[in-house]
Structures are given as C-alpha cells and as structure tokens.
C-alpha cells in the first residue's frame, strides 16, 4: 500500500491542482483501497498544503539560481515548471542540483518553442553555473604543485566548467528587470572557483578554449597546444606558443592550473 500512496502523493504534489474528482481518479489509478481513498477525500484541503510546500521549495531553488532567466520567461516559467514536475520531476537529493535537471528537461522544448527567446537556455545555464561551480569538489588535500612539462598532462582545478554559448549572455546586465538582448556571437567562457572560493568568469579565445578543452580531456600539454592550433587553422608559430605560455601562466595565477598531471 505504501507504494500506491507514494505514487499518489507524488502525482498530487507534482501534478495539477487536485479536485475531488481528480483525487478520486488518482486513487483509482494507483489502486488505493476504498477505505484509504475515502479518508483521503476528506482531507483534500490539507493535501493541497503539501502541494504548496513541495512546489514552493522547488520554485524557490530555481528562482535563487537563475532569477534573470525566470524573470524573462515570465508566465512561461509556470508552464514549463508544471511540465517539468509532472513529466519528469526532480531526481536529485540536492536542491542545488534541481536547476540543471530543469534546464536539461527544457532544452529541447525551448528550442522548438517560438515564445522562448533563443538565448534563454544559455542565460539560465550561465546563471546556474554560479551555484554549480561554487559547489564543485576541490582537489584532494596534500596536492603539491610542480612545474609543467610538455610531455605530460596538466592538472586543472576540478572546480571549473568550460562552456560555449552562441550568445554573449555573460554580458547581460544583472538587473532582473532588464530585457536587453545579448549579442549573437560565439563565446567560450571558463567559469572557475578561485582559491578564495569566489566564482569567476574568463572569456577565452577559440585557441585558448581549445587548449583548455583538450587539457580537460587529459591530453599532454604539447598535444593540446598542437591540436588546438591545428583546429584553428594555425601553425605552431612563435606567437601561438607564446600565447599558450601566457594563457597557462594566467590560469596558474588564477588557481586553475595546479601543475603537471
């Protein structure tokens, strides 16, 4: 019986507002016994309290992590919030992980919904990265940095994300009421947590992003630079090598590059 009641509760709190008829229907659907159904039907008002609590918790978590995205979605947020809850629902134990689940659910839907601005998913992702990166695990204790070597990989801080946008959503104003549209251009952004635990953002050139991406995959430093340059149609010129050295020095200063892997 607990299984039936669990499913009933989940449908009640995640689905549309319950009415006496829909409650009776849910009880039938989940094979809740007649006695229990009768008891539940006498408590509809109080069952609605749970619906408010569950939805309030989840809405608050989403609002805290991507306020500008929600503000720009306006009433459309409610529509997609309802769909997320009823069609998928959170899977995670951690409220901070509900936003990535919501965005992953919405991504294909927003792409085909002309009412949702093309950049909004990127804005939501960008906003949510603040909490995500602030919470990423740190390197194990006792890690001792050492000089880099061309034939080895590079140990990067695990508290980072390299993201690529089609819009410069990172340049949008912080003001939640702003409706300014972002410039449409390719952006590679390194979002990382500093040693002082602050989340910081660094826009990278395509070559720099290519190097970081390959280092994240575990390539050696030499291969990462060579392949990134090749992907950008560049030879390994003096300028490319100097640029790579400057990038690595800058990232080391920011606490992103920790040493050889």
């Amino acid at each position, binding site marked *: 019986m607990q299984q039936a*009641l669990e499913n009933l509760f989940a449908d009640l709190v995640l689905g549309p507002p319950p009415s006496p008829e829909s409650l009776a229907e849910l009880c039938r659907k989940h094979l809740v016994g007649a006695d229990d159904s009768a008891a539940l039907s006498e408590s509809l008002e109080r069952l609605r309290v749970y619906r408010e609590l569950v939805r309030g918790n989840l809405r608050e978590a989403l609002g805290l992590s991507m306020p500008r995205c929600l503000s720009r979605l306006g009433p459309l947020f409610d529509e997609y919030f309802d769909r997320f809850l009823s069609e998928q629902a959170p899977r995670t134990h951690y409220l901070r992980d509900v936003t990535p689940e919501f965005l992953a659910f919405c991504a294909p839907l927003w792409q085909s919904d002309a009412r949702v601005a093309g950049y909004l998913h990127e804005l939501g992702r960008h906003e949510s990265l603040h909490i995500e990166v602030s919470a990423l695990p740190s390197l194990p204790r006792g890690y001792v940095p050492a000089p880099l070597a061309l034939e080895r990989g590079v140990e990067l801080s695990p508290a980072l994300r390299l993201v690529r946008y089609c819009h410069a959503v990172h340049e949008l104003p912080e003001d939640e009421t702003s409706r300014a549209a972002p410039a449409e251009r390719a952006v590679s952004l390194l979002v990382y947590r500093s040693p002082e635990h602050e989340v910081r953002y660094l826009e990278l050139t395509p070559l720099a992003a290519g190097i970081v991406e390959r280092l994240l995959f575990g390539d050696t430093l030499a291969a990462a630079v060579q392949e990134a340059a090749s992907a950008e149609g560049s030879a390994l010129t003096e300028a490319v090598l100097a640029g790579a050295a400057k990038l690595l020095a800058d990232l080391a200063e920011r606490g992103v590059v920790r040493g050889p892997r």
Partner: protein
Amino acid sequence: MVRLGGVGLGLRWDFLEEVVDGPPLPIDFFEVSPENYMRRGGYYPAQLEQLQGRYPLVTHGLTMSIGAVAEPDAAYLRELRTEIERTRSPFHSDHLCFSSAGPRSLHELLPLQQSRENLRRVAERARRMSDVLGVPFALENITYYVHPGRPELPELDFLMGVLEASDAGLLLDVNNVYVNSVNHGFDPRAFIAALDLRRVVEIHVAGHSRKPSGLLLDTHGAPVADPVLDLLAFTLEQSGPRPVLLERDNDVPDLGELVREVQSLRALYDESLQRYHAAGA
C-alpha cells in the same frame, strides 16, 4: 566520542560566516544539515571545517526517505557517512517519513501511513542504519497535516513500534508534537508522557505559523511559541538532561537575536532540570 548537552542552534548559511569569524558564542553545539555540505567543495565546507573543534557538531539529514518503498540511495548513504565522519557527529538523525516516490525526489517530509507494513520496513532499515553510517541512528517524529489513508495504528504506537523494533534513538521534536496535537486534536502532554523518553537523544524546538483555516504549519520561521516552551519544560522534567536544539530556517533574524533565544531556552532548560532533579531526589 563528542557528547552533546545543553542548548544548540541549527547552523544556517545566513550566519555561518559570523559564527566562524566571531568570538565564542554561548551555544553548546550546532546542528548541521549534511546535504548542504555533502558532495561539494568550496566556501561552505571550508567554513564548516573552521568550526571543527570550536563547537560540537551533530548531523541531521533531510532526504534519506527511510520510509519509502525503495531502499535509501546507496551513493547518498556513502556520502553521508563521509560527512558524518568529517563533522565527528556523535549520532545521525533523519525523519520518520518518505520524501521520494520511486525515482522522483519530492524535497518535503511526507507522512507515512501508520501501518504495520511500514513499521516493519522502516524498523528493519533503521536497525541497519547505525552500521551503514558508523554512528548511532535516531528518527525524528514529523509534523503531518494529513494522515495518508486510514491509520492502522495511532501515531504513538507507530513511532514507538519503529523505535523499539529498530533500537533507534528518538529525536523528539516538541514543536511537531504540539503542531500535530492542534491539527489532529490530542493532548500533547499525554503523548509525550506515553513515550519511552529513555530513547530521546535530542530535542528540537522551532516556531510555527497558523493558516487562516486554523491549521498550524511547521515553518521554522518564528520564535518558539509559548505553548511549545511549556511542552519543552514538561518534557525535560520527565526526560532529564537531553540536548535541546533551536531550529530556524525561514525569516532568519540576525545572529544576536538567535543567541538571545538560545540563552532564554538555556534558562528554561536549567530550571526544568532543577525540577527534574528535585523530583528525583
């Protein structure tokens, strides 16, 4: 092992930095929601580490969902154990409830049907939990606004049945007893007097709110109400010394106000224990 006593405060991010950076506070221990620190790095775990050794810490979880049909998530339990070890918590507690339905995580403490089937399942899991987590395990009595279906057992029998069959401790939330007593119409003192108070490892108090319908909600968003303070005093006079914790999760005031509320609880705690010892003598 760390021993808890006196009056503690639920540690919240709103004032974590102030506690870490400030002078020693007249707070006997802090209670931590492990889910806020598990499987993460960065600022908050680093801050929590600063508190190690300065105050005893105890963990109190939210999302074990011990009452759900599905087994508690193994990865979650492994991470929880790591967090318990890190905080050196003397025991761990979670709620006698379910908060998931299959793969769906509902992020709310939902009431279990007070049935023999549920009693057996939860007790069997709670009995194993001390080994899984590496510390004694306790269950908290929750607030419930509706009982799901017809109860086979009264709340008291269900709660005590689970505890006796599992040998788990009881985290007695006095505010929850009071809220339930108003919402479901029973005598909260009789409820507490009928509990096996030897099982109580910690007592929670918090504020609640009243909906226009008269229903009380366990909001943790206000100072502890007078009837709950009376019930706390009554409980301590029966149970003897047990660590008491003030919970405040919503409309969190500044730390100074919370410290004053803890001190006021401490005075009540001391008076209640004097009466407990006087009655014993």
